[in-house]
């Protein structure tokens, strides 16, 4: 008789601690305070999430920070029927690019819309913050459809 085929679980896992630098430090510190912050480029565009450099000119961004949101517009999205363990939500949701009010770029986050049928490009959403914030992207639990829209 042939031996039974062997198999075993194999988990590959790394928890990296990423140093943020001044710009993202300010963004995540803002999240801890329940504020979404963007940085202005020299041309006056507001980048959210902020970056050290203006992707259009390559110049360093300014020291001019603005608070944006918490509402915004879904620019694009993809529905996730079966969330994985490390996703922010444990039920179906949409990954979406969200352009927050006052921002010129879009932030990737989750939209907790209940069903795929409730999702559409151009819909208005607003940030739902966690009860306890720690300075991480999960401080925004998800974006939810804005009431009355």
């Amino acid at each position, binding site marked *: 008789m042939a*031996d039974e085929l*062997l198999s*075993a*679980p194999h988990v*590959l*896992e790394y*928890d990296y601690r990423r140093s*943020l630098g001044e710009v993202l430090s300010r963004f995540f510190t803002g*999240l801890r305070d329940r504020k979404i912050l963007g940085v202005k480029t020299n041309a006056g565009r507001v980048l959210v999430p902020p970056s050290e450099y203006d992707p259009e000119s390559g110049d360093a961004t300014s020291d001019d920070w603005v608070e944006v949101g918490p509402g915004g517009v879904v620019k694009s999205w993809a529905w996730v029927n079966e969330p994985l*363990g490390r996703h922010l939500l444990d039920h179906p949701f949409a990954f979406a690019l969200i352009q927050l009010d006052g921002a010129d770029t879009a932030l990737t986050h989750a939209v907790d819309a209940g069903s795929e049928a409730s999702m559409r490009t151009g819909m208005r959403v607003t940030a739902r913050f966690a009860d306890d914030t720690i300075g991480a992207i999960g401080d925004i639990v998800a974006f939810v459809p804005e009431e009355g829209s």
Partner: protein
Amino acid sequence: MSDKEPVKSIITPTRTEYTYTPGPSAQRSLRALARGKLVGEICPSCNQVYYPPSGACARCGVATRDEVEVADKGTVTTYAIVRVPSENIDLELPYCTAHILLDGADIPFFGLIQECEWDAVRIGMRVEAVWKPESEWGLNAENIRYFRPTGEPDVPFEQFKEHL
């Protein structure tokens, strides 16, 4: 503004979960290991002995079939003293990891070295396996707890420089 310290870092976790199924050679070798034997395979073309066996010769690209038993004793070809903790590795720091060229094999095997001062570990040092009690043997590499020095004279680098 918050009067707390600014957030200076974030944790970015990555995790993948596999079900690992060893190929036929690795399966045979694991079953032998569960009986306390180190069974590799020999290349029919260049006669290199592989332990652990992968089923093919990396040098010739041909399948290996014939089994060859190798010794649980060998020579350290390189090593590292690990002083950085890792969440899923349950070893006291520091510890020593080594590549060990088992007698009869042509490629080194990975093992831990213990029962030795860290500054005494050296390339060319002779070591032998310390096994778990037979009642605890299973289908995994942990049957060998670690390797320890045998006290035999060191092997000159020239003798294993082709087996790194």
